[in-house]
């Protein structure tokens, strides 16, 4: 399922002028406050009419100024989780949740109430009214409501900002499953880049109403660009295969283009594909073969690129066969160890330094969350 | 048509007419419904097809209005009763004044107003203006009027002491213990105060004739008189 967006729209002093093209999967939309993220997804949902342009989801044209197509918002089957919950104050949580269900043909429903209740821990709130819910409770209901409409595309505008980490952990796998299983494209707006990159297929950066960069998550996140998306989050992203499990130590062995990785045990069968991200800040470089270290993952490679500013750190790109890692080291280490392109080095990756949440996401079924107080 | 007999009557004859209709019923007549409102309202409603049988107007104008439009049967038109115009004051008031040419009505008012029906449209007011004009008192009081929407309101103004003097029908004055008749305007001072009655052209009710006859019969004229009306002329 493909999402194509090419729209312009003037909003007072602000001008939205965005072009996006992305395949199947989850598009993470980043940008600072006021960049125009909400405005952009409003055009997709049919809430903000572009001055000109075209919007298509899975080949179905939702808007086209040339051929004068403008599908009304209630026919777009867009699941929109707004920045604020926008619950129906006069309906119980249950009726809020089920509001959109009737509009989806039964054959196309891909999620049921019970599943959503369990997932979002909403069981005990079912008969309450939105007025007295806490902020996070409200947002959970809003997410459940959008999901239960079984939308063809899911637009999520910072939906997890007001959820606690544990709750996020419980919801993420579900969002990821949606992405893999139902082929529903998701546009996910977030400020917290770490939160989403592990799910994202595509990342788009937005500033001043324009898309400044857009591409596969690996490419955008690997740019050793200090002005890029969250310096702290830069890292290499690649796909790997599950080759085996070490139940005793609760480890899973993965194979990727650069060698073998050992990561916390994954509940996935051998042969499964998985995406792995190794952040530059989690890679240590050694010029001698390391020994006696708690680090399980050590790779031999060659420095391919060195980006050095006048700050504390420098970014290294280390080639490992067909793959590469990014490493962030101090400029002092670059000098002390004489790191430079062409040099052979060892890259140390702590296994627990993997963003281990990315694997939770691959569990076949989301865990039942603990009942909420 | 099993509809009951419906009389459209000017509000000012209500007390007497109610009693007369009750007498009609107790003497074996059919039950009668009476709709009381302003003569103008009733006339217009008849014009718009009201299924009334008999119209009793408080003045000649609205009866003429209907007759011009052939909405009444001219042969049935008659004068039901007459009335007189009186000058009243609150019971407690000491005012003594006799109606005579040039009488000082303005002086008797002091800084108060003269309550009367609006001389522009309320029949009692129109008669009042004529009578005052006849005695040359109109110019002095024309800007000192409390023009009421109907004669009952004028009566209330005097009865409550809001106005020191008022001009109303005798039929109104006799029933209100709060007022005292200061003097009566001679009938010569104004157009005759009469209540014409006629049968509506479209009326088909069989009892219409019997009721009109009863209302004009001598046996109940005392009843109208007791309510302050004068016998028909």
């Amino acid at each position: 399922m493909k999402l194509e967006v090419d729209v312009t729209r003037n909003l007072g002093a602000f001008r939205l002028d965005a072009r996006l093209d992305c395949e199947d999967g989850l598009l993470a939309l980043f940008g600072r406050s006021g960049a125009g993220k909400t405005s952009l997804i409003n055009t997709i949902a049919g809430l903000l009419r572009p001055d000109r342009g075209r919007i298509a989801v899975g080949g179905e044209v939702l808007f086209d100024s040339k051929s004068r197509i403008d599908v009304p918002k209630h026919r777009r089957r867009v699941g929109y989780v707004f920045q604020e919950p926008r619950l129906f104050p006069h309906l119980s949580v249950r009726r809020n949740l089920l509001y959109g269900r009737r509009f989806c043909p039964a054959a196309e429903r891909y999620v049921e109430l019970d599943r959503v209740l369990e997932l979002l821990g909403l069981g005990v709130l079912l008969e309450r009214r939105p007025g007295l819910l806490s902020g996070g409770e409200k947002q959970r209901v809003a997410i459940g409501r959008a999901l239960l409409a079984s939308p063809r595309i899911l637009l999520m505008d910072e939906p997890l900002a007001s959820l606690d980490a544990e709750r996020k952990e419980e919801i993420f796998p579900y969002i990821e499953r949606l992405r893999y299983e139902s082929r529903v494209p998701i546009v996910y707006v977030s400020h917290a880049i770490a939160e989403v990159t592990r799910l994202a297929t595509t990342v788009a950066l937005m500033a001043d109403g324009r898309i400044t960069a857009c591409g596969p998550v690996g490419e955008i996140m690997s740019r050793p660009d200090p002005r890029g998306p969250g310096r702290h989050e830069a890292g290499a992203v690649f796909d790997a295969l599950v080759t085996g499990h070490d139940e005793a130590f609760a480890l899973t062995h993965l194979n990727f283009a650069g060698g073998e990785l050992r990561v916390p045990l994954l509940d996935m069968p051998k042969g499964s594909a998985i995406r792995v991200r190794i952040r530059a800040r989690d890679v240590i470089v050694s010029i001698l073969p390391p020994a006696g270290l708690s680090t399980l993952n050590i790779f031999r490679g060659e420095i391919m690129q060195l980006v050095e500013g006048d700050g504390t750190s420098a970014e290294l790109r280390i080639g490992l066969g067909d793959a590469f890692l990014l490493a962030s080291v101090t400029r002092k280490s670059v000098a002390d160890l004489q790191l430079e392109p062409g040099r052979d080095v060892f890259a140390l990756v702590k296994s627990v330094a993997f963003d281990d949440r990315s694997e939770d996401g691959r569990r076949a079924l989301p865990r039942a969350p603990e009942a909420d107080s | 048509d099993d509809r009951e007999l419906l009389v459209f009557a000017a509000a000012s004859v209500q007390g007497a007419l109610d009693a007369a209709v009750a007498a009609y019923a107790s003497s074996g007549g059919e039950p009668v419904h009476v709709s009381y409102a302003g003569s103008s309202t009733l006339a217009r409603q008849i014009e718009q097809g009201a299924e009334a049988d008999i119209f009793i107007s408080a003045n000649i104008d609205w009866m003429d209005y209907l007759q011009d439009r052939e909405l009444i049967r001219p042969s049935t038109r008659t004068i039901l009763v007459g009335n007189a115009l009186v000058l009243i004051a609150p019971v407690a008031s000491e005012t003594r004044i006799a109606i005579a040419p040039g009488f000082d009505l303005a002086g008797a008012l002091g800084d108060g107003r003269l309550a009367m029906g609006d001389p522009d449209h309320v029949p009692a007011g129109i008669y009042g203006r004529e009578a005052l004009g006849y005695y040359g008192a109109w110019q002095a009081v024309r800007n000192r009027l409390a023009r009421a929407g109907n004669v009952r309101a004028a009566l209330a103004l005097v009865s409550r002491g809001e106005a020191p003097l008022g001009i109303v029908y005798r039929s109104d004055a006799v029933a209100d213990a709060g007022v005292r008749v200061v003097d009566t305007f001679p009938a010569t001072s104004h157009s005759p105060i009469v209540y014409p009655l006629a049968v509506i052209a479209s009326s088909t009710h069989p009892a219409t004739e019997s009721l009109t006859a009863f209302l004009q019969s001598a046996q109940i004229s005392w009843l109208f008189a007791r309510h302050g009306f004068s016998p028909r002329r």
Partner: protein
Amino acid sequence: MPELTPIELEALRLSLRVGLWGVALSLPVAVPLAVLLARREFPGKQLLNGLVYLPLILPPVATGYVLLLMLGRRGPIGAWLEDSFGLVLAFRWTGAAVAAAVMGFPLMVRAIRLSVEAIDPRIEVAAGTLGAGAAWVFLTVTLPLAIPGIIAGTILSFARGVGEFGATITFVSNIPGETRTLPIAIHTFLQVPGGEAAALRLTVLAIVLSMLAIIASEVVARRLHRRLQGHEA
């Protein structure tokens, strides 16, 4: 207060019927109109809005006269209604209900409109993205959220209808048992010398009736309000 006389009972029942039917007639028109005025911009909106207020602006007698001219048996709409459906409004309690509806209409529309304007349109937008078409959003979101205004409007309009006099007597006259509602009965009693006591009893009755309606609506509204806005702080 001693027991109600048959006349009083009749007027009370009639007023209740007229008030309820008046509300029932105007609600289905007032709600969509109020939403239209609250949420859309269209050419002629100001004109329409002004028209809605007309019955409030015009003297009730004039409104009643317009109704009589339009809906009377000789009026264009009245004649059509009678020919097509055998429905007669003039001089019937149905006409009194229409008069009550018309007189209360501006009050009803204004109250509902205020409530609709206070609804956060973003909630309706959210319903739209969930797949609900305009009509469904209206029924399931706008309408329930506008309930406070609908209640307020209904009660204002009911009270106005129950208290309506001028337009009613002009349009449907003052026919006992058919169109003599409480206010008309009060007025009628006030026209008879000595009728004040009876008028007062009826006035108290009218007050009690409307008060009960108002209090009931308050209770309902308050419950709804609590259910809707559970703001903790």
